[in-house]
């Protein structure tokens, strides 16, 4: 971990551009938390690069006083891969939306995760296409009414964290736009991880999909709808931490139990192990109303080498084998003959 940049504050990471999201948009809160977290990461401003696709969320780089590239719809992971391949010393962040990252860019998302390119990938999930005025997205719940689905959407949404784990992501976390105290540490964990760190951020779009995460966000209900993950701690929730997640040995599925009822004790509750991929996959699929929704680090496999590390390692080996490159010598390889 790098030492924090002591002389810098959130303000130093704020660009001179006027922020143009709708009033009340969850993106504001995310921006604020990221700007606040940046000095704590200890990486010089000029080494930070934010790459985005297209969407409301993808406007993000314009507001960061770092290097930034607002690219084309869905392709930010590919552009970011090129940035990192070109200069592995840069600290690369991808900002994408549920449409950008999982619809048009789903293929690139899969491959950047599988390859494990060393970057942080933040997916602002508002379960809607904000920028194009509210069409449903691949994460919209069945029945979502939108301009393109006036009678309600009928196709199955996907769960971003399930997708990420399926694609082979080695770091998968989830957090919430307005929960700075939760998001900050998650971002730091994501940043510290070598390889692709996938962070899903529940983001409210007050204009086109207002309130979809309210149950999870509101104080009144949060205790029962949220499962806060901490490595080594039991998966309990509820106002008194009286409820927990147990593995049913018969069905091999997770279930909600109440401690003290039906003979359930604390020992029956699953202890979170973020290095356990099977557990992570089960947790990633939990959703309301049957389960509380997990937030925090679902999975972290710290030992896998990053793609970019391996690419450069290979080059070092080849350079050692082949010696100093000499283009004139290369041009003269194979059979040559002299005409005099």
């Amino acid at each position, binding site marked *: 971990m790098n030492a924090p940049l002591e002389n810098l504050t959130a303000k130093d990471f704020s*660009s001179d*551009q006027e922020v143009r999201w709708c009033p009340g948009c969850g993106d504001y809160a995310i921006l604020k938390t990221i700007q606040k977290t940046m000095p704590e990461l200890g990486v*010089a*401003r*000029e*080494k930070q*690069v934010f*790459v985005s696709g*297209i969407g409301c969320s993808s406007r993000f*780089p*314009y507001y*960061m*006083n*770092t*290097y*930034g*590239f*607002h*690219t*084309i719809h869905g*392709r930010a*992971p*590919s*552009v*970011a*891969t*090129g*940035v*990192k*391949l*070109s*200069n592995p*010393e*840069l600290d690369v962040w991808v900002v994408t939306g549920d449409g950008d990252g999982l619809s048009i860019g789903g*293929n*690139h998302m*899969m*491959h950047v995760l599988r390859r494990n390119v060393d970057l942080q990938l933040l997916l602002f999930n508002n379960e809607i296409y904000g920028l194009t005025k509210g069409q449903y997205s691949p994460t919209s719940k069945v029945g979502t009414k939108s301009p393109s689905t006036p009678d309600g959407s009928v196709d199955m949404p996907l769960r971003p964290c399930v997708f990420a784990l399926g694609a082979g992501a080695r770091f998968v976390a989830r957090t919430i736009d307005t929960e700075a105290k939760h998001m900050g540490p998650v971002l730091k964990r994501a940043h510290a991880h070598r390889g692709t760190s996938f962070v899903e951020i529940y983001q409210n779009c007050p204009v086109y999909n207002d309130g979809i995460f309210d149950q999870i966000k509101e104080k009144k209900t949060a205790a029962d709808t949220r499962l806060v993950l901490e490595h080594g701690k039991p998966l309990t929730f509820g106002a008194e931490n009286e409820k927990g997640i147990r593995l049913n040995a018969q069905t091999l599925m997770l279930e909600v139990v109440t401690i003290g009822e039906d003979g359930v004790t604390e020992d029956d509750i699953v202890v979170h192990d973020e290095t356990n991929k099977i557990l992570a996959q089960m947790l990633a699929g939990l959703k309301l109303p049957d389960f509380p929704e997990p937030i925090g680090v679902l999975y972290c496999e710290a030992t896998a080498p990053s793609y970019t590390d391996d*690419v450069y390692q*290979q*080059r070092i080996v*080849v*350079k050692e084998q*082949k*010696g*100093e*490159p000499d*283009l*004139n010598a*290369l*041009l*003269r*390889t*194979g*059979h*040559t*003959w*002299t*005409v*005099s």
Partner: protein
Amino acid sequence: MSAVEEMSGQEGANQIADVVVRFAGDSGDGMQLTGSNFTEATALYGNDLATFPDFPAEIRAPAGATFGVSAFQIYFGSDEVSTAGDQVDVLIAMNPAALITNLKDLVPGGLVVVDVDAFTDKNMTRAGYKANPIEDGSLDAYRVLPIEITKQVLESVKPFGLSHKFAVRCKNMWTLGLVMWLFDRDRTVTIENLEKKFANKPDIAQANIAALNSGHAYGETAELPTGVEVYSVPKAEVPPGLYRNTTGTDALAYGLIAGGQLANLPITFASYPITPASSLLHTLSQQKQFNVVTFQAEDEIAAVCAAIGASFAGSLGITSSSGPGISLKGEAISLASATELPLVIVNTQRGGPSTGLPTKTEQSDLNQAMFGRHGDTMLPVISSSTSVDCFDVAIEACRLAVQFMTPVILLSDGYLANASEPWLVPDINDYEPFPVTFEDNAEGFTPANRDPETLARVWAKPGTPGLEHRIGGIEKSFETGDISYEPENHQKMTDVRKAKIDGIARYIPEQEVAMGEAKGKLAVVGWGSTYGAIHQAVKRCRRENLDVSHIHIRYLNPFPANLGDLLAGYDQVLIPEMNTGQLVNIIRSKYLIDAKPLNKVSGQPFKISEVEFAIKSLLEA
């Protein structure tokens, strides 16, 4: 000049000026390997040469199928050779399918060598023969050399105890030995190649060498029909220096590496496999010791985007594909244009539309290169005309990309990629470097700053303190580079982008005349791989005192500044193209001249005679 006329004794002493040989067999018969070894021996002998490998789209077609025939043609001679030749003088047909598909190109009186052992009923039926062509008189117009090649081969490799399958595979080397005898080629290099190729299987190497020598000995000792004897093709007169053979792919790969060096930049080469472009990715991935990172992306969109990301970060991003893949890259190319980042896009063209003819050549992506994007995306387009030319053109693409901060499209094609020719190896120190200087001064910096002369945008790479900035596809203010939706600003930015590309005409050489006078009755104007056929056709016509010149255009956008005036100096302009008439339309609309098209889209390169005929028709009309 047909070799056969001369083979029939006119010049005597079995000396001929030039000859076309084609090896044809099943795709599993090793014809490409045979051809490349013969090419190497021929180059070492000192002839000028050009080759045309022509292989099927099927990787392993069923044995004996006509659609699985793989051929390798070489044209070599004592004079300048710049195409793989029109008509075949010597055809090697390893089976009935190879004979039936290639015989039409054999000149009457030409020599055909066939492996009679492969003319089984099954093979003949599969190829579509009702009777044995060797016996039924249908080859009477040619000189036929029927040899039991398979039997000869099995005999010659017996001492090595190979299985029948492996023994039969030595057939191609036996045949090569025979053809090497016919043209007095040295076998040493082929033997070395075999030893290297089968270093881990010495008995296979030795068997192949034995087969090669046995084919050669057969020529020396067997009683062959009159006229089938050793021919000598005198050495060509070429400029002195060190030579090697190169394919367009190799020359292009080396040119990109050279371009990176001359720009003093690392290269990030990102691509997705597609025939016939993949070999560029293969070649560059073997050159990691140079500052080259290669990336096989998940698709063409990811490839071009990774190249753009690499350019943003301070490398030279390069991507490569063929027509269908270039279509996928279109949106991202416009991003590179809007953000004014350097990017080289190599298109190794193939027959289209859609999957079209993946292994055949065509020049039908010129319109795509010029116009195939949304929203007034203008960019430079350049093309290579020969395999060797790919080297210089690749360097030029890199130069234009970094000097003007723009995507550049380089058009090559399947023919150039695979065809090889001798290359007077250049010295990289003879090339003018064009080192890039990155901005590092924060004073007065905006990402919109431009060079007042070239109009190139400033390049400030991430990692540079004090120059943190954002770029993107949204229209930017001319002054600050910030997002701007102002009407006048968009007009201005569009004008500037256009002026920058148009202005490149001031930084490229004037158009020269490749052969002939700078004015006259007729100019034959070409671009890309039609160079050889046009050049030879014009040469033949000029020998007959026809007033015709050859102009070959490397810079397709912008055109050289003098092109319009130059073309105006001819009564007529003829534009041969392997498409339905793309350059001709551009020339007509740009210069308002009545240029005439000559089009061919058969997947095969132009024949010299086709261009020659068109020239004469125009001049006689």
